[in-house]
Each structure stands twice: as C-alpha cells, then as structure tokens.
C-alpha cells in the first residue's frame, strides 16, 4: 500500500504508530486502536514489535552504522539470537533480493545513495517481518537510485510473504507497483482504494497536496469529451497511455489542434556570457585520484535559466562548487564577466555567484530570520545603515517579512529554505545557483523555490542555474539544459531540443518528462514530439466529432 499526502498530513506519524516508535520513542496521545500482526504496538516493547514490523527511514545515511554490508544485514537477526548459519542464509537471500549480491564485505560508506537505501531495506528483511513500513524511502535519491529501490521493493513483494506500507510523494513511480493507495489530508484518510481508482481523482489529489500522475491529469482533462461509458484509468507506462489516446484519436473521440510549438529562446534572446567555464578539470585526491570534471567548457549567459541535470556522481555538484570557489580546478579557468574567479576568495565570489544548498539546516544558526541575513552582510562588510534596507528587501522578496523576528528553526522546512535563499540573495549575487530545490518537498512545496527563482530572473534579470532530478520542474522553468555524464557535458542546448535526445538521455538513466513521452507516443498522429508540459499537450487536443 502506498500512502500519499502533503508534508504534515500524518504519513510519518502513521508509520511510527505501526512500528511502535510511538509511544516507545516519541510521545503522544492516542485514541482508537492499532493492531499490527495481531498485537497492539502500544502495549509491547519495541524489540518485540520489530520481530513483526520493521521500519525503513528516508535518510539512508542514518540507518547504516555497521562496518560492512554483511554485518549490517546480520545485525537485526543477531540481536534476536538467530543461529549464525540461518543468519548467513538470510543475508545472502536478502542481498540477492535487493540486487546487492556479492557486496557482503563492502563498507557501507562506499555504497551509492540507491545502494545504501537498498541495504537499509535488506537489513530489515533479514528479520523476516510480516510488515515492512517504508517512510519515503526514495525521497532523497536520484532517478537511478529511485528506480533501483523500487525494483528491490518489487522483488520483495514478489518473493516474500510480507506486506509493505510505503509513504511517498512519487505517485507516478509507484503507480504500477502497489495494490492499494491511501491519501491523507490533515491527518484524515480522504481516499483509499486501488491505485487506478484513487490516482484518477485529480481534483481530490490536488486538494490534498498530492501530485496527480501526468497520465491522470491528461485523461481527466479529456474525459468530458469522451463518449458515455468510456473511461480512462491512469497508466504507469507512458507508451500504454499514449496507446489509449491514439485509440481515441483514431475513433474520432478526440481531435488534434494544429498549433505551432513555441521556439526555444536562442542565444540572441539572452545577454552576454556572465560565467565562462573554460576546459576545467578537477580531481579529488585519493588512491587513485577521482577525476570529477574532465575538460568541461560552458558559457552561461546573463538572464538564462539553466537546468543542470545528470545522475549523482556525474560532476554536477563538483562543477557548482567550482563555480562558487569551494573547489579550485587543477586545470582550466572560470571567468565571471571576464574576471578570473581563482583570484577571488569564496566570500568575494559569493557577492557575484550565490549557491543555495539542498539542506538549509547546514547554514542556519541565528536567533532570528533577520539576524541570519545580517550575518552574511556583516561578513562582506556592508555598512550598518545599509544592512536594514537590504534585510527588508530580501525578506520581502522571499515572502518572509512577517517572520523576521522568528527563530529560524521554528519555521517550516519550506520557509527555512526560503530564508537560506534570502541569506544568499542579500549578498547581491547576479548568478543564483539552486541545488535540488525539490528535495524533501511535497507537491506544493516543490515549485516554491523554482517560482521564486523565476520571479528573480524576470524582475532583476538574474541568471539562474538549477540542479534537479525533477524533469517536470526542469521542463517547466529552464530554457536551457546542460546534461552531465561521467564528468563531461553530454548535452547542452535549449530544453526542448535536449529532451528530444531520448537515446542519449537514457545513457544517463534520465528520461524526458512524461508529457514529452506522451507527445512522442502520439507523433504518428501528428502531435509535435517535443512538447514539454501537460498544458502544452492539452492545448493540442480537443473534442472530436464522434
């Protein structure tokens, strides 16, 4: 069962109740009854509940603490006194199920994000629980990691007598995996049933802050035009969804509207180069050294909105760290308006190129939002009389003026991220880099920072570079895409053109947005294949004559 809901809807609380973390670790009051595999977790110690129900958290780092994968997987059953031979048998079996066979002796620190989460899953499988509770197990993973973990969950589901309850925001990815879905809104169940039934209720999902699958949005929009009795169920596979639409087009229930596809902004639509990356090579020390950037060259122009995409380890973060001076390339140069950044300190670069990190909690420490912003201004030596004006300006820009005296850790995660943006903006950078602005955000929160970036670009002609794994977000906002692969720029061009390169993208385990895939599936009917969003797709469909 998949459980969907906005942040704060009660998903994690449900997980904690089922696994006995409430009341054993977290306090609270309860009404009603919970029964897990015949026992009420409220009445049993947690190590007893763990033999029936185990939980996997969203942060893979926090769950792995043993020195090797084998020890990690053996930890649970060893605590329960299971004989050694049986433990080793379970370890081998669990490793096979999650696709980590042969890595028994591997240090868990050396695993990738997806591997770590699969290891966390395997580490509870060896206990042979009846119920697995997975709390947003893919929320911190890239597309490849997400795919690997969902594949592992599929294997567990098929090969074990175990029930799985998984909370997630990724409706599209889990649609073909689960038997039932539940939607929570403000602590209440608002929908429960088979996925094709629950996920086709687009308005209900939107209202609950859950992203409806793209195919559900398209089908919901065209359903009033369909003949009586004809209903479309959301599909996990875009090809099959395109097949359904082709059938309706063929039957005359739908008709294509010929419309020109908007031109991608060309080089003349934006300004002069503001950042120039010239044959930059960077290697991390080690035996052997790891070369993360290999002769990367790139020009970013004033006022561009650039999407930087690629798998973890492709070199995106290293490139961004080099752009803000946290890493100094061994070869090549980076110029800001013609000025070599290697001559500037990180602090000086911060007044030209700002980076907003994924996790604001690595930065915030002051007693109020305004003090948080003042901190950076003091560091760059801005005159005290100008600080107040700048603080007011940036707080207003991000919509946090009303909480200027609030302790930052009392703010919601979304507001803390906005505050981190404000703190960076206060330094006055002309280029703003945002690292994965959708991490740990729900449907409503995920576009928050991207919208903000868009406004800044339109208002002040700032240049935006955005790292993201969210192709829908990238398609919606970026007018240029840079695809990194193994330390090199694999593709670089207008978003529409880059998403046309489905084969090259597949090499990097990336896929165009579902709307683009649907459009490509309808190309034989005359639909332009390079559409980017659901709105663009729907604008080219209308009610047919029959």
């Amino acid at each position: 069962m998949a459980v969907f809901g906005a942040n704060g809807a009660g998903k994690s609380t449900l997980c904690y109740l089922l696994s006995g973390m409430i009341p054993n670790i977290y306090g609270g009051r309860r009404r009603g009854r919970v029964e897990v595999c015949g026992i009420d977790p409220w009445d049993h110690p947690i190590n007893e509940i763990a033999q029936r129900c185990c939980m996997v958290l969203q942060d893979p780092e926090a769950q792995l603490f043993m020195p090797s994968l084998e020890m990690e997987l053996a930890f649970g059953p060893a605590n329960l006194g299971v004989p050694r031979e049986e433990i080793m048998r379970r370890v081998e079996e669990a490793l096979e199920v999650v696709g980590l066979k042969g890595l028994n002796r591997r240090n868990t620190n050396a695993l990738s994000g997806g591997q770590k989460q699969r290891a966390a899953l395997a580490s509870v499988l060896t206990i042979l629980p009846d119920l697995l509770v997975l709390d947003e197990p893919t929320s911190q993973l890239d597309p490849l990691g997400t795919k690997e973990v969902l594949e592992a969950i599929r294997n567990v589901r098929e090969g074990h007598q175990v029930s799985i309850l998984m909370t997630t925001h990724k409706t599209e990815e889990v649609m073909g995996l689960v038997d039932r879905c539940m939607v929570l809104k403000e602590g209440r169940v608002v929908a429960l049933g088979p996925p094709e039934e629950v996920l086709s209720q687009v308005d209900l999902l939107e209202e609950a802050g859950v992203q409806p699958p793209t195919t559900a949005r398209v089908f919901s929009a065209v359903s009033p035009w369909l003949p009586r009795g004809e209903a479309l169920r959301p599909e996990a596979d875009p090809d099959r969804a395109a097949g359904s639409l082709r059938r309706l087009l063929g039957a005359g229930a739908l008709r294509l509207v010929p419309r020109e596809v908007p031109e991608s902004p060309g080089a003349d639509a934006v300004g002069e180069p503001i950042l120039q990356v010239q044959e930059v090579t960077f290697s991390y020390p080690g035996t052997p050294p790891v070369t993360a950037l290999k002769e990367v060259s790139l020009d970013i122009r004033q006022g561009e909105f650039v999407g930087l995409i690629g798998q973890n380890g492709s070199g995106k973060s290293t490139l961004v760290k080099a752009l803000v001076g946290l890493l100094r390339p061994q070869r090549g140069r980076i110029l800001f308006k013609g000025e070599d950044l290697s001559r500037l300190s990180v602090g000086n670069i911060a007044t030209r190129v700002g980076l907003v990190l994924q996790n604001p909690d690595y930065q915030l420490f002051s007693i109020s939002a305004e003090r948080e912003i003042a901190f950076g201004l003091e560091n760059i030596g801005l005159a005290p009389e100008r600080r107040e004006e700048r603080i007011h300006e940036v707080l207003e820009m991000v919509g946090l003026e009303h909480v200027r005296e609030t302790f930052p850790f009392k703010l919601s995660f979304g507001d803390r991220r906005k505050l981190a943006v404000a703190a960076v903006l206060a330094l006055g950078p002309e280029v703003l880099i945002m690292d994965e602005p959708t991490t740990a955000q729900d449907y409503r929160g995920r576009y928050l920072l991207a919208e903000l970036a868009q406004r800044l670009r339109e208002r002040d002609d700032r240049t935006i570079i955005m790292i993201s794994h969210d192709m829908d977000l990238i398609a919606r906002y970026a007018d240029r895409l840079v695809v990194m692969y193994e330390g090199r720029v694999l593709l670089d061009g207008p978003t529409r053109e880059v998403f046309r390169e489905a084969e090259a993208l597949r090499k990097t385990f990336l896929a165009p947005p579902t709307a683009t895939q649907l459009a490509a599936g309808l190309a034989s009917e005359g639909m332009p294949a390079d559409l980017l969003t659901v709105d663009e797709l729907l604008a080219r469909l209308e009610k047919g004559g029959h």
Partner: protein
Amino acid sequence: MQTIFSYIDRDTFVHRLHPVTKLGHVLLTLIIILIPYGPTLESALALSVWLAFSAVLWGIAGISLRQFWSLFKILLATFVFLILIQGFMYRGGEPLLVLGHLPISGGADLGVVTDAGLLFGLLLCVRVLVAVSALPLFISTTTISRVMAALNSMGVPNRFTFMFVSSLSFTNLIFEMWNSIIEAQKLRAFDIESMPLWQRARRAYVPVIVPLILLLFRKGNDLEVALKSRAFGSTHRPTQVEVLEVTWRDHLMVAVMLGVFGLCLWIRLFWK
C-alpha cells in the same frame, strides 16, 4: 581518501592474524617504548630493531611507504622540536655547537648543543615513531567487525562493543557534517579557515557548532529509530556472526614477536 587510520582491504598474512595477536604487537610495542633509554648506541639499536620489525609487518600488510611517509610528515614538527629541545637542554655530552652561554639550574647550558643531547633527541623521535607505528598497523589490517568479535571474545559486553563501533561511524559523520557546515558558511562570506586564531576563538565557532549540534540531535534520533527497528536491546543473547580462529599464523607470529622482543631487551640490557 585513504588515511593511515583507515582499513586497507587486502588479504595478507597480517590481515589474517587473529586481532588479539595483533593487539599483542601493540602491547609489546608499548612495553618497548616504556623501557628507560639513555643516549647510547645500544638504546638506538634496540629501538631500531623493533621499528624495523614493525616496518617489515607494514610491508607484509601491503601498507605503502607513502602512508608511512604521511605519518612521518605529521610528526616532523614534533621531531624537530624534540631534537632542538634535547640538543640544548640535555645535561652532559661533548659540545657540538656553541651559540653562547646561558647556564640554567641542573647543569644544562641553553647556548650549547651537545652530541649526547642530539642523540637523546633522536632517540626520543625514534621512540615516538615506534609508538605510533603499531596502532595504524592494527587498524589498517583489521576490520571493525573483527575488532568487535575480538572484544566480545575477551568478554566485553555486546552493548559496549556496539557503542565503540557506532561511535566510530558517528565520528565520521561529525567530520562530514563539520566540513559541510564550514563550506555552507563560506558561501555567506564567512571563511573560518582564513581567520586569524584570535578571531576564530572569539566568534568563529558559533556559526559552525550550533548547526552541528542541531543536526546531530536529528541524526541521533534517526539512529535510535533504526536501531530499535532492528531489535537492538532485545532480551535474546546476541549471536556472534564473525567467527575468529587461532591458526598456525598466530602461533608463528607470536613466536617471532617474542623472539624480536627478547632480542631488543637483550640488546638494551646486556649488549656492549
């Protein structure tokens, strides 16, 4: 990045030894360096023999000279300090270099470097080197799971060995967080690393330590959930997964170790 304090995944004679045998080497090393030494040739020889023995073990374990050199570089400043301080402060020996005369109580002359002082300083350096060469050998060739098993086999309760292991992984986490926070604050023009020492002490650590503490609380909470979810603290007697065996290698190693140890003692006490 490989450091002298990280495990090197190889399959060598030293790697296969029982951890307790390797701890025996650490223990004998401690005894060797605690024996009193004067500025004499036999003292230098005894220490050098043990150092050479440790170096041979490093070689067998496949630890590269580069790592030994890293260790040496870390200690270089200490060595220079020891040699200079002993050269000037040691009482006795023939003068090698006279910079002036500044006699102090006890008979030493701060203006004169003596040969015995220099030799004693050198001996202290070798002693430090001998002392610090043993532990990396143990750590680089023993997996944490084998260390845990060894501690358990010596009767240390499972909870304590787990605390030891989890504190190691938490230490790594703290270092990673520390670096991430410093980088994050640099992005707000706050560069702790380039600040003068007095400024660091005055104001630099609050922007780093506050987020670190708050993040650690959160991680600690997650760790507790992860542990409890895997039945940690159950009333069952925990199963020992890692099996340690004493083999012919351990017998051989113990014999060689005791032989070399005896030789060093003989050189130090009886060799003329």
